[in-house]
C-alpha cells in the first residue's frame, strides 16, 4: 500500500506501557493507573477500572534511533518537526537520529476513551499540574478526546505540556537505569546526543544500551524540564523533516491512496444543502466506458468507474432533479437583510451579552464625539489545494478508510457509525493533508465515502471535483457587526459598544476587548442559515479582527489621532502588547513619509495565545489596491521553530490577503454561486507582498499558536492603509467589490 512507503507499519501493542518491543526497541510509553497519582490529581480522575492514561510516547530502538510519536496531523504547519524538537530537546537526543511517527487513530492508544471516562469534557489541566507527568497525561488525554489538530493548539498544548514532559521523563528513566548498572549517583550522570555519560569514570553508553533497563524504572513523578538557557533544539530554525519528500513527489496525501482493485468515484451533491435527489436520468452515463455503478445516494449522486476521469465524464451527463427546501429562495442580499433586521430588533438591549463593564449607555450619551459604523464580511470557502477526497473499503465485516483529516479518531468513529461496523474492525489511515485550514475537521467526506463503499464490492476512492469542493464547503460564516464608540473631549475612548451576528461554535474571538476602555459591552445574536458553516483559519477572529481593528481606526481618526498612537493609549498597562505594537510600527518606519497614493495601516489582534501586530503598505495608484509589504511583529511566548513560525506568518498574510481582496462565497436561490478558481480567486505570486517577520519571545512559559494568529490583523491593516492613502473607509469585504477609480 502507498501508505507503507511513508510510514512504518504500526503495531499498537508495542507502545502500551513501558517495555521492550519487537526488535529490541525500548518503548517509554508510560502508563499511570488512575487512583495512584498525586492527591491533587485524584479529584480529576473520577473513576477507573485499571485503565491507563498514556503519554505522548517516545521509543528508542537498538540502533539508538529515537522516535517521537506525535498525536497531531501534518497539514503544512510543520508540526511533526516542532513537536519532535520539543521532545528530543528534553530527552537530549541526537537530532540526526530522531524519527517521527504520527500517532494512530486508535482509541486504546490515543487515550480518547480515557478522556471520556476520566475527564470532564474540555477540562483544562490546572497549571500546577502541567509540568508533571500526570498533568501532561491529562492534558494530552483532553486534547486527544477532541483528537483534532486545530485551534493553533499543538505546540502550546500538546507540545508544551505533553511532549516535553514525555522527553524529560524518558531521559530520567534512562539515567536512573545507567546509575543503577554503573553503581554511581544519578547526579554524576549527564546526557548528550543520545548518550549517557559518566565523566568521572569516562564511561559512556548509548540510550539504546539502557533502553530495556530504563523500561523497568518507575515513572518520575515530576520530570525536570529545561530552562530556556539549556535548550539545544527548541528555539532553533531546524529544517522540517517533511520538506524533501514534498519536493520530489514522494509525499503521500490522502488523494494518493492506492489499493489493489481500487475503483474511483465522482460525486455531485444537491446544489442546495438539505435538498434530496429526487430522480436521475443516467441513461447516457450507463453506457459510457469504464462505468461500473451509478448510485443515487439520496443527498448526492455517485458514479463509480475504473478511472476517475471516466467517472467524472459519466457524472456530467446525468440529469438530476432535487426536492424543494426552505433555502431555495434565499440569496446573499436577503441574508444580509435578515442580519440587519435581526440586529435592528435586538436594539440596545437584546442579544447575548458576551461582556459588559461600566455603563455604555451613559458613557456614549455623554461622549463629546460619537462614532458609529457597520461592517460586513461574506461567507468564505477554504479552497484547500487538495480537493476533498476519501478512500474506503468495506468487506467481510471490516472497514478501512484512507484520507487526510484533522481529526483521525473522529474519522474512525464516523466510519464505524456510518457502516454499523464495530469500531474494533474499523481502521483509519491518515496521510498528509493538502491543506486543512479547518475544512478537514469536518466528517462529510468520511461519511460519503464509507456510504459509497458499502454500496460497492471494492475499495473506492472518492474525489470531489474543484466545483464540488467550492460549492459544498463548510463556510466561514458571513457576518455583520455594528459599533458605537464614544470619545471624550481629549479624544480618549470612553465607551465601546458592539453587537454582531454569530454563527460559530465554539466561539474563539474575544468576548473581552483587549483594549482598555472603561465602558464596554459586546453582544451577539445567533442568525440561522441553511448553509453549512465551520472553522476557517483563525475561526471568528477572521471576522472580528477586521471589525474591531477597523472601528478602532475610525475612532482614532475621529479623535484626530494617529492609529498607532491611539492604540498605544488603549494598550497602556499591557507591556507585552505594547511591545508587539511598537515593534511592528518601528519595523515599518511608521513615521516615514510614503509616496503619493501609498498608505500604511496598522492592526493588532491577540489570538490563540499569540500577540500579533501588522503594518501593511498599500499602493493605491493603480486601479485596484496593491499590497507591497506587510510587517509582522508577533509574540508567541517562545517560538519553538522560528523559521517555521515565520512561515506561518507569511502563510497567514497570503491566506488573509486572498480573503481581503477576493474572498466571497455568495448564495443565489439557496445554492453557492462560485465553483472554481476563476470565480473564487486565490492570491497569486505576482500579488504577494514582501513579508517581514519579527518574533518576540515574551514569555517562555506560556506559548501561543502559530497557524492562525497571523491572519486576523491582515485585512484591517490593509483597509486601514487604504484609508490612509485615499480617505476611503472600506466597511465591507472583499475589496474586489469596491470601486476605487
Amino acid at each position: 500500500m502507498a501508505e507503507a512507503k511513508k510510514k512504518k507499519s504500526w503495531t499498537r501493542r508495542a507502545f502500551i506501557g513501558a517495555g521492550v518491543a519487537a526488535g529490541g526497541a525500548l518503548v517509554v510509553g508510560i502508563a499511570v493507573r488512575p487512583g495512584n497519582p498525586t492527591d491533587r490529581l485524584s479529584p480529576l480522575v473520577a473513576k477507573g477500572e485499571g485503565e491507563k492514561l498514556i503519554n505522548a510516547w517516545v521509543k528508542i530502538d537498538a540502533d539508538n534511533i529515537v522516535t517521537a510519536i506525535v498525536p497531531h496531523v501534518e497539514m503544512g504547519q510543520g508540526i511533526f518537526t516542532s513537536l519532535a524538537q520539543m521532545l528530543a530537546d528534553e530527552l537530549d537526543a541526537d537530532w540526526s537520529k530522531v524519527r517521527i511517527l504520527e500517532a494512530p487513530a486508535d482509541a486504546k492508544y490515543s487515550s480518547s476513551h480515557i478522556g471520556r471516562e476520566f475527564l470532564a469534557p474540555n477540562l483544562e489541566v490546572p497549571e500546577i499540574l502541567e509540568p508533571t507527568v500526570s498533568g501532561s497525561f491529562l492534558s494530552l488525554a483532553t486534547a486527544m478526546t477532541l483528537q483534532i489538530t486545530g485551534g493553533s493548539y499543538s505546540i502550546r498544548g500538546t507540545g508544551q505540556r505533553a511532549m516535553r514532559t514525555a522527553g524529560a521523563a524518558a531521559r530520567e528513566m534512562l539515567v536512573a537505569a545507567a546509575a543503577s548498572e554503573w553503581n554511581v549517583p544519578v547526579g554524576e550522570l549527564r546526557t548528550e546526543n543520545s548518550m549517557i555519560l559518566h565523566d568521572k569514570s569516562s564511561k559512556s553508553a548509548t540510550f539504546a544500551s539502557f533502553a530495556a533497563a530504563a523500561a523497568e524504572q518507575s515513572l518520575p513523578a515530576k520530570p525536570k524540564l529545561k530552562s530556556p538557557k539549556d535548550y539545544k533544539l527548541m528555539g532553533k530554525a531546524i529544517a522540517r523533516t517533511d520538506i524533501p519528500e514534498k519536493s520530489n513527489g514522494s509525499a503521500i496525501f490522502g488523494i494518493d491512496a492506492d489499493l489493489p482493485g481500487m475503483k474511483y468515484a465522482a460525486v455531485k451533491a444537491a446544489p442546495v444543502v438539505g435538498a434530496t435527489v429526487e430522480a436521475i436520468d443516467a441513461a447516457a452515463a450507463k453506457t459510457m466506458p469504464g462505468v461500473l455503478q451509478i448510485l443515487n445516494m439520496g443527498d448526492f449522486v455517485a458514479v463509480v468507474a475504473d478511472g476517475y476521469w471516466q467517472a467524472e465524464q459519466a457524472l456530467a451527463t446525468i440529469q438530476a432533479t432535487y426536492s424543494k427546501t426552505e433555502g431555495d429562495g434565499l440569496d446573499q442580499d436577503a441574508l444580509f437583510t435578515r442580519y440587519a433586521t435581526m440586529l435592528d430588533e435586538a436594539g440596545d438591549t437584546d442579544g447575548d451579552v458576551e461582556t459588559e463593564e461600566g455603563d455604555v449607555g451613559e458613557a456614549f450619551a455623554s461622549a463629546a464625539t460619537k462614532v458609529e459604523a457597520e461592517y460586513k464580511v461574506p461567507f468564505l470557502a477554504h479552497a484547500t489545494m487538495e480537493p476533498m477526497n476519501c478512500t474506503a473499503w468495506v468487506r467481510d465485516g471490516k472497514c478501512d478508510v484512507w484520507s487526510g483529516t484533522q481529526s483521525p479518531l473522529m474519522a474512525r468513529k464516523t466510519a464505524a457509525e456510518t457502516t454499523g461496523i464495530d469500531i474494533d474492525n474499523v481502521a483509519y489511515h491518515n496521510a498528509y493533508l493538502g491543506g486543512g485550514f479547518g475544512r478537514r475537521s469536518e466528517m462529510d467526506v468520511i461519511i460519503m465515502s464509507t456510504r459509497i463503499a458499502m454500496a460497492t464490492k471494492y475499495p473506492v476512492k472518492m474525489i470531489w471535483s474543484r466545483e464540488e469542493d467550492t460549492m459544498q464547503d463548510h463556510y466561514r460564516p458571513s457576518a455583520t457587526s455594528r459599533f458605537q464608540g464614544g470619545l471624550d473631549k481629549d479624544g480618549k475612548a470612553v465607551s465601546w459598544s458592539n453587537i454582531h451576528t454569530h454563527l460559530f461554535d465554539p466561539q474563539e474571538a474575544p468576548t473581552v476587548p483587549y483594549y482598555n476602555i472603561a465602558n464596554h459591552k459586546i453582544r451577539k445574536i445567533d442568525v440561522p442559515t441553511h448553509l453549512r458553516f465551520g472553522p476557517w483559519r483563525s475561526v471568528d477572529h477572521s471576522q472580528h479582527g477586521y471589525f474591531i481593528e477597523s472601528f478602532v481606526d475610525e475612532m482614532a481618526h475621529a479623535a484626530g489621532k494617529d492609529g498607532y498612537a491611539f492604540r498605544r493609549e488603549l494598550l497602556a498597562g499591557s507591556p507585552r502588547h505594547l511591545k508587539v505594537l511598537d515593534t511592528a510600527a518601528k519595523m515599518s518606519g511608521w513615521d516615514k513619509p510614503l509616496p503619493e497614493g501609498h498608505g500604511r495601516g496598522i492592526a493588532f489582534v491577540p489570538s490563540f495565545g499569540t500577540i500579533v501586530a501588522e503594518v501593511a503598505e498599500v499602493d493605491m495608484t493603480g486601479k485596484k489596491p496593491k499590497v507591497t509589504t506587510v510587517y509582522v511583529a508577533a509574540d508567541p511566548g517562545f517560538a519553538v521553530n522560528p523559521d517555521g513560525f515565520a512561515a506561518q506568518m507569511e502563510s497567514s498574510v497570503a491566506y488573509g490577503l486572498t480573503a481581503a481582496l477576493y474572498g466571497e462565497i455568495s448564495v443565489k436561490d439557496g445554492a453557492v454561486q462560485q465553483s472554481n478558481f476563476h470565480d473564487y480567486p486565490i492570491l497569486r505570486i505576482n500579488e504577494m507582498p514582501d513579508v517581514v517577520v519579527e518574533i518576540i519571545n515574551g514569555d517562555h512559559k506560556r506559548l501561543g499558536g502559530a497557524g492562525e494568529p497571523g491572519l486576523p490583523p491582515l485585512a484591517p491593516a490593509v483597509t486601514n492603509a487604504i484609508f490612509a492613502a485615499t480617505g476611503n473607509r472600506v466597511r465591507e469585504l472583499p475589496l474586489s467589490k469596491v470601486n476605487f477609480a
Partner: protein
Amino acid sequence: MITLNVNGQAKEVDVDPATPILWVVRENLKMTGTKFGCGVALCGACTVHVDGKPVRSCSTPVSEADGKAITTIEGLAEEDGTFSKVQQAWVDEQVAQCGYCQSGQIMTATALLKNNPNPSDEQIDAAMAGNICRCGTYVRIRKAIKVAAGNATETQEA
C-alpha cells in the same frame, strides 16, 4: 494502446486517447507526485513537461503526448535520488508547507530556469502566476528560484 515516454522510460497504456495525462500518470502509471487541483488548468498543481515545456496535465489529452517525452516531478532527481538544483533550493529555502502544489511549482520553475537561467523578480512572477499555492509560500518560491539560478543575494537562516 498508447506508447508514452515518461521520465525517459517507455510505457504502454490502454486508455481512451482523450484521457488527460494527469489521470494516466496517477492511476495507470501509479506516479502520484503530479496532483489534481482544479481540472481546468487554473491552478497549476498538475504541471508536467511535455518535450520540456510545462503543460497542464489535467487538461491535456494523453494523445497529445504520443511520441513526445513527458517529465513528471518523479523524473527531476538523478537516478540515485540526488535532487535537481531547483528541488534542492526548495529544501534549502524550506519552501513547502502542506506541499500539495509544490510538484507543480517545481515543474514550472524548472521550465522557467531552462529558458531563462537568470530571471528577474518580474519574470519569476510572470512565469509562476499560473501556479496557486494556498499556503502562500510565494515569498520562498521567489527566493528558491533565485537560489537555484545562483543569483540569490542572501541565504536564509538554515
